[in-house]
């Protein structure tokens, strides 16, 4: 739960510093690196955090002036509905963040082990 919240809040926070989608990769990578115990927390926690954030922000933009653009982009993408766009946004966010979380976690395990050996 903490990882989900951390991922969500930190990615949101950094968006206000600089608009870039890759915060959703960089922050879970860092969170995964600092996760000591659970690979699933590192992976799915970060993934869910970003998935929830991106879905919530997508819905917020949709209902606050995004009706026309959502309808048009749904037609451009051939998906028929804005709901699919929200889901796609959320899924992409989840995939990015969870893989980054996993990579961060793996990196830590590798480096920590090497450190212990040396």
């Amino acid at each position, binding site marked *: 739960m903490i990882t989900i919240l951390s991922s969500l809040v930190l990615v949101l926070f950094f*968006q206000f510093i600089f*608009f*870039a*989608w*890759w915060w*959703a*990769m960089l922050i879970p*990578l860092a969170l995964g690196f600092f996760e000591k115990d659970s690979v699933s927390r590192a992976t799915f926690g970060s993934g869910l955090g970003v998935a929830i954030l*991106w879905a919530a*922000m*997508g819905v*917020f*933009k*949709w209902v*606050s*002036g*995004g*009706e*026309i*653009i*959502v309808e*048009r*982009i*749904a*037609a*451009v*993408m*051939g998906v028929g509905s804005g709901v699919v*766009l929200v889901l*796609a*946004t959320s899924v*992409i*966010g989840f*995939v*990015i963040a969870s*893989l*980054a979380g*996993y*990579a961060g976690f*793996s*990196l830590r*395990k*590798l480096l920590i*082990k090497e450190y212990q050996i040396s």
Partner: protein
Amino acid sequence: MRLFKTVLAMVGLMGLFMVLNNNQGSIPPLAKFLNPFAGFWQNGTQQDDLPEVLDVKGLRDVVTVVWDERQVPHVFAANSYDVYFAQGYLTARHRLWQMEFQTHVAAGRVSEIVGAKAIEYDRLQRRRGMLMGAEQTLKMMRDDPESQIILQAYANGVNTWIDQLTPATLPLEYKLLNYEPEVWSTLKTALLLKYMVWDLTGRNSEMDLSIIRAALGADFVKAFYPDHTPLTDPVIPAGKPWRWDPLIPDEPAPDFEPQFVKELRAHEPDPDNGSNNWAVSGKKTRSGSPILANDPHLGLKLPSIWYEIQLNTPEMNVYGVSLPGSPAIIIGFNENIAWGLTNAASDVMDWFEIEFKDASYSEYLYMGEWVKAEHRIEEIVVNGGQTVMDTIPLTRFGPLVKYGEHQLENGHPVGLAMRWIAHDASDEMSAIHSINLASNSEEFFEALDRFDAPGQNFVFAAADGEIAIRHNGKFPLRAQDQGKFVRAGRDTTGEWRQFIPTEQLPVISNPWRGFVSSANQNPVGKKYPYYMGWEYDDYERGSRINEQLSDLDQISLEEMQRLQMDNFNKQAEKMLPFLLAQLNDVTPEQEEIINELKKWDYFSDPDSPQAWVYKQWWLHLERAIWDDDLDLFGEIRERPPRSVTARLLRDNSRLVYYDDINTPEREDRQAIINRAFKTAVNQLMEDLGPYGESWALGQARGTDINHLLSVKGLGRPGLRTGGGVGIVNATKKTHGPSWRMVVELGDEPRARGVYPGGQSGNPGSAFYDNAINDWVSGNYYDLYFLKSPAEAQPQKHSVTVLRNYQ
């Protein structure tokens, strides 16, 4: 194992980054595009919000912008620098992607955005000399202090907007194509203006006519491609005497058969780029004041080609439509005058076959000597690929558009050069600025003297009661038929050595009939001493307009709106009864359709199935007569004008060309008319089912207004429209009236207008396509001509104050 897993995860992560951060074919970079903080989700109607105060760097004084309910900005500035700065800033705010993309298209820089698929387009565009012409023009504009200020002010305004953009506020198309705007240079404005010259003068049939003449003989061309088409009522009434001594053009060049048999017609502008305009004198109007009307017919796209705006300074108050990317107002009105444009269609592009010494293309034959050809090197940058270099040999006959494929019997290679008016420096922006300021015909015509290209029929009306029209532009002084065929670029014949003096251009003021008009038809009758070209539009639109204007009296703005929307098909009126009388051996289903055609009132309204049947019948008939004969070197060449074909059909029952050379029988007129009818009707039945509503013009054809990139979902297809080719309402499938404007001058100008789109270029905006339904229905908006911001009405307007900050 752990190392392997980690490496795999990191590589996977980097791979994912690359895939989601870059376009995959036509798929946008998904993570960038879907990211709700900066992706497409940010391009909603919140971008329509208009702030009360905007701090803008670079203004000299405060600028007040009054926005009306359609987001048309009415700009009030203290000086001309600020007014054009604000025009640049506000236009970019609404249309940045469109204006920048169009300059990439003009400059042959599309590959930089879309990659290798546009290399050939870019190469051709550069060889045409578009960039070269824009550079010449820019140099000229920079030499004029006033033009320089206007250009730079506009560019500064655009760049100020670009500087304020964030990844979130970037226009949608940049996100779709994954690139960013570059700095707006003054060259881009020059390019945009040259692009309009291309759109309106870039099509001609010299290659085709040379081929047709070689294959079918000079008599064929003379008979079927006349300089004056039947029934044409010229722009300047044919009886007008010309009271000046004409210049003597060079002797006509002898006939010449070029080596090139493949034509160069890729990426040519639409053949129906044209327009209607007219002005009616106060003698014929209800109010006693002159009325002017204009509707330019162009390719219909979203975002729209026009941007509506009012510009006000202490010296100027002007309203109309501008081209996004260019300062000032192209078509519009001020307190004293109104003006409108239609394409002149006179020939300003000639082709020459040039003989070179060898394959280095560095020396060519001219007046019996080898003359050096300069080489211009073009660098075509390709997104995701290697830069392509291209060499363009430059001759006194223009740049070599095509070379490297043919040689003469003596072994010398030949190339095809194009001499085009857009290669020359000309400052149309300055001319337009002067028109915006003009208060009478004298100032207006003085400004026109500096408007070289594209050649246009400028219609004019003034509050003092004057009306006028001038076939205006820089037109080469031609021998008869010079420019109708490809010439041998070996000597002075065919060279552009003189131009028609501006005081000898076709013009008329205050004619006795009480109106002036143009619809791209031949500007003059046979009495005019100069040959200016032959590819003018047929008589139908012009005749209909002139008949209506002659008949009407006590004219109001509403009547002029109705005339712009007029769907009467003059060609059908003339031809249909005759064609119907030729039909025989028809099936009961065909009989039913014939009966419906007999009941038709000749109005090509959206609900009319007859209009679509007639259109298809005529198309099949033209093809049946000409395509077997004009199928030369693998392509169907230019068919004769409609009116020529129509006259032949009525007057000649046994023309040899009626026969289809691909069939054993010998077809006569009746046979081909019957065959065309039956083929058309069978095809319609197959495509649309039995005769009925699905055949209605508005449904079977209608109009599609596509996005500039033809991205499905961003356009407005399937609009139920009427009109068509040869009809005053010249609406077609993807082409038509791009701005309809009617203006009544008097103590106060009263104007209405509409264009098929909206002020915003953002597909997520409420102002992207908000005017389209009204455009389809023929509804017009009142154009608020404000004299000061104080006239703004709270229920209709909002106000933004632009303040300078350092």
